[in-house]
Structure formats: C-alpha cells, structure tokens
C-alpha cells in the first residue's frame, strides 16, 4: 500500500501538482494497480532476456542527409500560445 507521502514523492518526480484530495484518492487507486502487478512474481524469469523491441530491429541508422522538414520553424513556434522572442518561446513570468 502506497502512503500519501509516497504519492507526493511520485507526483513530484512526475512534475504533477496534486490537491490533498487527489493525494488520498490516488494513494488508493495506485495501490490497487500496483498490488495487481504482484502476479508477475509467479513467473520464473531468471533465464529470460527482456523484450524491448518486438520485430528484432537493432541500431537503425539513416543516411546522413539533410531532409526538408514538414513544417517551418515559424509554424512550430506558432504552436505555442506563449510569446516568441529571438526564435524561442518565452515562459512568463518564471524566466524573465
């Protein structure tokens, strides 16, 4: 069972603000989910390699060629509602 302190710690790592009410709600829900994962301990995997990729690809490299992007830098900057300054997005007021 996760404590409320655990939940606050995870939320901090995940950069998510939670209200006190959220913390107690999430402690219960996350515990239910994590308790269920104990079923994996039934499996003997001491001799088994983990799977990261299911079709067997390794080290995929492209040719070192400049390819035209689908979008212009201006279009990408325009995706943010924040002000653009010197071709960068300016976060206000945290960074002035």
């Amino acid at each position, binding site marked *: 069972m996760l404590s409320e302190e655990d939940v606050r710690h995870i939320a901090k790592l995940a950069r998510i603000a*939670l209200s006190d009410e959220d913390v107690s709600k*999430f402690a219960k829900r*996350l515990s239910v989910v994590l308790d269920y994962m104990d079923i*994996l301990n039934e*499996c003997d995997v001491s001799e088994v390699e983990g799977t990261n990729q299911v*079709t067997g690809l390794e080290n995929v490299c492209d040719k070192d060629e400049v390819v035209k992007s689908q979008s212009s830098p201006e279009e990408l900057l325009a995706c943010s*509602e924040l002000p653009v300054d010197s071709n960068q997005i300016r976060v206000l007021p945290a960074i002035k």
Partner: protein
Amino acid sequence: MNLNELNIREAHQGLKSKDFSAEELLDSCLGAVKEKDGELNSMITVCDESAREQAKKVDNKIAQGDDIAPLAGIPCAVKDLFNTKGVKSTCASPILKDFVPPYDATAIERLRAEDMVMIGKSNLDEFACGASTEHSCFGVTKNPFDMERVAGGSSGGSAAALAAGMCTYSLGTDTGGSIRQPASFCGVYGMKVTYGRVSRSGVTSMASSWDTIGSFGRSPEDIAYVLQAMAGKDLRDSTMPDVAVPDYMSFIGKDVKGMKIGLPKEYFGKGVEKETADIVRAEVLKLEKAGCEIVEVELPTTKYAVAVYYVTMPAELSANLERFDGVRYGAKPDKVEDLVEYYYEARGRGFGDEVKRRIMVGTYVLSAGYYDAYYKKAQKVRTLIINDFKRVFEEVDALIAPVSPFTAWKIGEFGDDPMKEYMADALTIPSSAAGLAALACPAGLSSGGLPIGLQIITPQFEEGRCLQLAGVLGA
C-alpha cells in the same frame, strides 16, 4: 440503401459510375452527424468545410474523366490522436484542446494522396488511456446499440461514428486493444496491424513499443483498401522493418481449405462470458465447413499479460508525455515562483485523472529501487508471452478468440475500480505484447442485443491471412 451505409467498394463504384457525387456521399454522412451526434458524442471536430472542398475536388476529377483512387471521395473519421495539418488535434486532453498541428501524420499524408475526405476528428480516451472513451475531456462517447453503454475505447469515437453511419471508414490506434475492443462493442471490423506495419509518425505516442495504427470498416475489403494505402516503410518511423507490402485484396476470397486454426483455451475460460464464448465457437464452425482444421491450443502466460502491459505501458507513456510541460502546448500558469512550479501547475491542470494515474504508475516503476522489480521483470515476462505465441504458431496458421471477455458495459458502471476496466483488454493485450496482426470481426449479438466480436490473430506481417479468414467468416 442510404449512401452513408455503403462500404468502400460500393461507394467507389457509385462515384465512378456517377450514380452519386462525392459531395452527396459527404452530405449523407454529415446528415447522420447532425441527426445523431448530439447524443452519441463520437466526434470532437467536424470538418464540414474542408471535407466539402476535398469532395468537390474528387467530383471535378470524375467530371473530367480522370481515374480516381479507391479511397478518393470516401468520408473518413480520424481518431483525434492523429496530427492533421490545420485541423485541431486534441488527444481529448485539456493540455492540447486548442492545438493545431502544422503537419500531417504519415498515415494521413498517404490517405490524402488518395484524395481522402476527412469528415472530422473522433473522440477517444485522453491520450488513448482507457478502454471506454469515458476518459475524454470532451465527455463520453455512447454506444449506437445502447445509449446507456460505452462504445469501448480508446478509439471509441471512430467505432461509434462508423456504426452510426457518420463515415464510410475510420482510423484508430491499437496499443493494447484500442481498435479491436471498440470494434467489437460497436459491431464493425477493426484491424490491429503488426507492430511497424504502418508508420506511427505524427500520431501522438502512448506506449512506443506497443502502438499501432489501423482502421475500422464495414467489411474485410474495407480494411484491405485502407491498409494498402497506409502500410509500408516510412523514413520518419525508424521502428519499421523493411517488409514488402502484399496485395491485401488478393487474400479476400482465397481458399482456406487445409488451414489449421487454434482456439486458445484460456480465451474461452474463466472471466469470459459464456454467451460470448459460445457465439465465437459457433462462428468458427463456418471455417470448419470451409475445410479448416480446428484444434484447441494453450497459451498459459495469457493471465500475466495485463500486468505486463500495465507496467510497461505507463512507463513508456510517462516518458512520452514528458514533452507536455505547458511551454509548447497547453495551459499557461501564471503566478508561479519558478520553472519547476510552472511544470507542476501546467501538468496538474492539463491532464485528466486517468492520465495522471498512468504517468504516476510509470514514474514509480521506473524509479530507483523499483526498476528491476517491476519494469525489468515485466519486460522479461513479455518475452515469455512472445515465446508462447511462437510455440503455437509452429502448430497452427491462425488463432481465433473473443475480442473482449464481456459486452459493452454501462457508462460509469466501473466507477472507482481501475482494474475492472483494465481487464476489458485481457484478451487483446497478449497479441499486442508480441506485436502480432489481429483483426476484430463482428460475430453476432448477445441476447441483450449488444454486438460480440471475435479476433483472428496471426504471426507478424500476416495481415493478409487475417483478411483471408475474415472473408470466409463474413460471407
């Protein structure tokens, strides 16, 4: 028959022989949207103007006597997880609710090359996190067969829109069952392709080692048309093996005599409604009549798949959603002290509960001290699941099983217990874990009048075999 109920081949032939125009076909679908979507809530954005322009373009081509592609002028609804140039792409999340991407996903680009008519963007669980479309910031999508029930998820809007005649085909994504399960709940076909068969580029990632792009249709042929247009290597997705794309249509109508079909006993056992199991078994008899050999097989690691998924998927999701920090997209908190607090607030406000829950599970299983116990362990058990499938595919050509252990549930029925909803994908997750191809097909109706679906599961890159068998079942 109404134009909005035609399948792709019928619509294409009608357009070519000038029985009706692309604009009339579009109007018929828009009429269904107007009539039904107020209640059904399957669409987030309806693109009536741009769709009309696309339809007119096709009508002009036909008038000039130009040849048109099979999908030209055919109305399609697109899950709002796909980025579509100039059209809001929200992922059903508060953090992206006003986001307009400057480019198209590769899958969309390829369909546009065939003159697709995109009627709109369909509803989903936020960032595809859910099995019911109840977790959308735009509200739940209802099931066209029973308005008190869910349409399934996460691609619930695409399935419901097709079933209700708002489009001729639709697009979705399937990570752990998100195409197959809503297809099954809404009585349509839904293809989960092999991992890497269709480019994921431009479709917002959920769990990168699981995500696949596919379609919903009214027949196996509809699936074949759309897959033909979308499949194949794309340099923007480096996880695609270079495997030749066959002529998918050639598989439909092909003889199935002598094929060996496995029924995995775990998929018909505990936790699976008897009526569902019986209806799927009855359908399989059609294949026996057509000359297939039917055998029972065992996949003993089936029961671990949900746990494997709900460790590795949140881990990958939490990494993928790190980019949503309120700078490029989403809420703009003010009155914060520093950048870290800015992130807390932007993400705290920008994500719904189910997404937060999964990000936190993912963060936990990847954190120091838990990485080996959860994440690494789950990846190893994933290998056992893959080995199980490899073993049975030495014996059989395909597997047939129910898609979902139960039919569509009532909206809100699962309340505060996340595990109940997670179990809805218990029969679709294992094949996703192994990156296999699987096609959901309508199998019949329950005594309560709700659709029941079966899935045909084949080895990787054998989508054609799914279509071949589906052609016999659907005939």
